[in-house]
């Protein structure tokens, strides 16, 4: 589904990623882990088109999508969430999800300003669809609240609902459990399971090992910009290199 091959990213003299390759199978949940500074977020930024890699390629469903702009990648089903949730704070929860439906609407400036009949129908359709995704994430009761006023945990759920509205093929989640308490993390794990059941391939960067070992079928370990290991949770837990990296040995 998603294939990353030979990705290298240099910022000035610093090599953030060095020849990283792996593939993520369709319909799986893959965890990308590693100590701080391993290059996990950089990798996400490259895969979603926010950074252009120094070298290497990204393929989505066999199609080369390297160097494509984020907005084009999003339209092709490559969608992400952010470590520090990036909500549209002055819009309501429902409107946030409707922004996620942007690519599903057709009405432009003229149709919108004139409220042409088909534009009104489209708005109604988008609103109903947005409600569906709020329901999916279990936050329909918050629809009319301004997103900036949401507690952090609910904000996380909203960000996921908004990402799902794009009906992604691949959903990349950057530390979805960061800042969540244990009950919220449990809720999140259930939601990620539901996303996978809906046929979406999930990749997540995460520090919460319990969550990763629990829900991921495959794990990629990065350390200091290189791929250290790849395998099932059991293989990773027993891998001496991984243990050494996490215990802080050279």
């Amino acid at each position, binding site marked *: 589904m998603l294939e990353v091959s030979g990705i290298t990213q240099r910022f000035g003299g610093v090599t953030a990623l060095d020849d990283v390759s792996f593939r993520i199978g369709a319909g799986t949940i893959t965890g990308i882990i590693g100590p701080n500074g391993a290059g996990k977020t950089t990798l996400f930024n490259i895969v979603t088109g926010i950074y252009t890699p120094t070298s290497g390629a990204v393929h989505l469903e066999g199609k080369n999508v390297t160097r494509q702009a984020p*907005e084009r990648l999003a339209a092709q089903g490559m969608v992400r969430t952010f470590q520090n949730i990036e909500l549209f704070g002055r*819009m309501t929860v429902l409107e946030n999800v409707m922004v996620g439906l942007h690519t599903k609407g057709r*009405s432009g400036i003229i149709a*919108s*300003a004139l409220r042409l009949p088909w534009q009104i129908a489209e708005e109604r359709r988008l609103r109903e669809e947005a409600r569906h995704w709020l329901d999916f994430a279990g936050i329909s009761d918050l629809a009319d609240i301004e997103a900036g006023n949401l507690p952090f945990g609910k904000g996380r759920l909203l960000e996921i609902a*908004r990402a799902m509205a794009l009906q992604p093929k691949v959903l990349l989640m950057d530390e979805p459990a960061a800042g969540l308490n244990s009950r919220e993390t449990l809720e999140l794990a259930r939601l990620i399971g539901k996303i996978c059941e809906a046929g979406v391939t999930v990749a997540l960067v995460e520090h919460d090992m319990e969550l990763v070992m629990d829900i991921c079928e495959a794990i990629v370990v990065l350390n200091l910009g290189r791929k250290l290991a790849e395998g099932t949770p059991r293989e990773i837990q027993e891998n001496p290199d991984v243990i050494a990296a996490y215990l802080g040995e050279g």
Partner: protein
Amino acid sequence: MKSFLRNEAVRFILFSVMILALPALLAGGYLLNVFVFVGIHTLLAVALNLLLGYAGQISLGQAAFFGLGAYASGILTATYGQNPWWVMVAVALTVGLLAFLVGFPILKLKGHYLAMATLGFGIIVYIALNEAVDLTGGPSGLPGIPNLTVGSYVFDSDLKNYYLIWGVTLGAILLSLNLVNSRIGRGLRAIHDSEVAARVMGIRVRLLKVQIFALSAVISSIAGSLYAHTMTFVSPTSFGFNFSVELVTMVIIGGLGSIYGSFLGAALLTLLPEMLRAFQDYDIVVYGFLLIVMTMFMPGGLVRGVPELARRLLARGEKGRADA
């Protein structure tokens, strides 16, 4: 009552009725003339608010689009005797196209740099209006622009121009309200809050910014044409850097991201200099002082600050009564 007022259609109708009834209260005096200008300024402020208040992109060159509309209408009707109505439309579309071409490279810039680039554009246009003497009449201005007419009906009085200009402005307000509450409006507000998140949602940020920049130029150009035909005379000083800054001030004082706020800001900044005449030579000092105080105590603009102030005063009044 409150939920009644929250209904967008009801608010627009109430606002329109108020505007349409205003001349009866002003009884054709000098203030009616001032309110003709409030109408033009509201139109310009609404156009800028779409860009600045909703999409979060600054433009210090709005006066240039206003000036291009005014001069192009003036020259084509006064010098070349063309029909002012189709000139107005053709000029607005041309100015919109120009804004699209100018906007494409410069809207890549952000914040201060975008301010500088739009400022530069404004200055270029201002210099051109001054220097192209053969065409524009240079610093001494362009006289003899005809009033607008429909058949044998001539828009030659303050009252007629009031209804003409406010008709257009109310129309622009209605269309803008529709726009900001649509897919496009949500896209604009998304860009304002987080450009990277907007892109990840599949919004073509650059294109949308340029489109809204062009739209604001089209509206400003129409305002310029109306201004030229109302005044029958234009000179470059009306379209300089000062006026661009004044428009930004109207939008901020009125309330960023509020269409009715643009009316409040435009009304205040147009009426205030008239009311401050009593201070004679010190009027500009008082004007500056009032603007500073308002920005300090009403950072959300008049549209949010005035109800807040009223609420506080009411609460204090009730507390006073309870204490007594």
